[in-house]
């Protein structure tokens, strides 16, 4: 048996132990509220049968997709400019560092004021939450590019936009992707908080609504499990970007 397949066994064992411990403690304590793992599975099946599962999941994913892509579209070019031009960095960075520590949750009242209780508010909050780690990650990545690549490009007469797009960006890409992964993780974290406040769909809404409408804790935990699993899958998808030939060099050495 190879070393890899043996180490694959441990994550399953740990998850299994967690579920077993949860199950035993629910049965032993005879709690009337907290659901067993089986009740949660039945809850997910119920959501799937009545069609709300797809509706909630796709609503949350849609909000994350738009908010996150808008953040990518602005954060990465801005990060490249900040990392490359010292003047841009000195001008923009203080503003970014000032806004960055403000939790996206703190923006909820303003988001509702500006964008109402539709889809735009959570998208805005997701945009905010993923924008900052990506812009700082990209700027740092560009700033710490090995100088010999830039010198070589200069030597071969590559300059201007071509230098930025075809040398600086690919040289920083491994770190840009790390920032994108971080950004997506935070975006997913925030979608739930954003949906708890205002809207009538999404996994965050599912959790709050199940609690308010009759203490359906099986559905509350079902929502939590779905959030965890989808977040996990999103991270795996982002990690697969690190396997692209264009960025592998950074991780193999």
């Amino acid at each position, binding site marked *: 048996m190879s070393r890899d397949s043996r180490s694959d066994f441990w994550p399953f064992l740990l998850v299994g132990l967690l579920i077993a411990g949860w199950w035993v403690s629910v049965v032993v304590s005879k709690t009337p509220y907290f659901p067993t793992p089986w009740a949660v599975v039945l809850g997910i099946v119920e959501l799937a049968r009545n069609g709300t599962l797809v509706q909630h999941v796709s609503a949350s994913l849609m909000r994350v997709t738009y908010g996150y892509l808008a953040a990518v579209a602005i954060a990465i070019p801005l990060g490249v400019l900040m990392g490359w031009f010292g003047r841009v960095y000195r001008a923009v960075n203080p503003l970014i560092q000032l806004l960055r520590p403000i939790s996206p949750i703190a923006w909820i009242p303003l988001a509702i004021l500006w964008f109402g209780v539709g889809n735009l508010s959570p998208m805005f909050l997701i945009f905010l939450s993923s924008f900052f780690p990506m812009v700082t990650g990209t700027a740092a990545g560009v700033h710490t590019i090995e100088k*010999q690549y830039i*010198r*070589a490009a200069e*030597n*071969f007469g590559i300059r201007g936009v071509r230098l930025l797009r*075809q040398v600086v960006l*690919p040289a920083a890409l491994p770190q840009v992707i790390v920032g994108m992964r971080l950004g997506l993780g935070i975006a997913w974290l925030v979608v739930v908080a954003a949906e708890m406040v205002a809207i009538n769909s999404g996994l965050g809404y599912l959790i709050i609504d199940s609690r308010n409408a009759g203490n359906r804790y099986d559905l509350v935990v079902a929502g939590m499990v779905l959030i965890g699993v989808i977040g996990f899958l999103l991270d795996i998808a982002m990690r697969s970007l690190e396997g692209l030939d264009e960025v592998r060099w950074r991780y193999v050495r």
Partner: protein
Amino acid sequence: MSGSIVATGIHKSFSSRQGALSVIEGIDLSVADGEFVALVGPSGCGKSTLLDILAGFVRPDRGEVQIDGEPVGSANPRHILIPQQPSVFPWLTARRNITFVLDGVPDGEQRRLAFHYLDLVGLEGFDQSYPHQLSGGMVKRLELARALAVKPDVLYMDEPFGALDALTRRKMRDELRRILLVERHTALLVTHDVEEALHLADRIVVMSPRPTKIQCIVDVPFPHPRRLVSVEMIRLAALILSELGVETES
């Protein structure tokens, strides 16, 4: 395809906390068209700074560098510098590394040149490989192929084989000689390895410690391929080492 270098009155100092730190104090150097010159000197003496100035990466405080009578303004593809650390682009395949620097050349010609130079340096069949999939010696070959592909007048090399193991270093020296026989570039090599200089160069310029000047210039009038263990070679090596302040048994 090759050019003559004339450097006159090169001075350079860097500012440090203790004030101006003079690195190069008056260097005059001429390298003939097609000549191979090695610069040897104690580490930290300013050889690399001199090479940066010659290649147009750093401006001298005083003095001028001319290639074929034209002053060198900035780094450009007419003179390519091969640094010690790999500078081929790790996100491009071997072939794309070469075609990428051939901007303005038609696509078909780019491909042809890429394959031609990969073959010349002994990398045939590795055109689709990424640099991280190649060995250290092969990355150096790719570096050389990319530099040759733009047909520079001058090839500058800053301890190009310094990061390789001893055996690969020896092989690369033979390879470089073989390639320069085909391509005939003016070449300037910075090294602290006297044997390497004797193996490759037509002339060896010995530099003094910082602030550096030219201490002496030694001709190496032997044809290639060279035997490194001949009496004359050992005598030359002893001469250069004693100039560098290293005494050898006579």
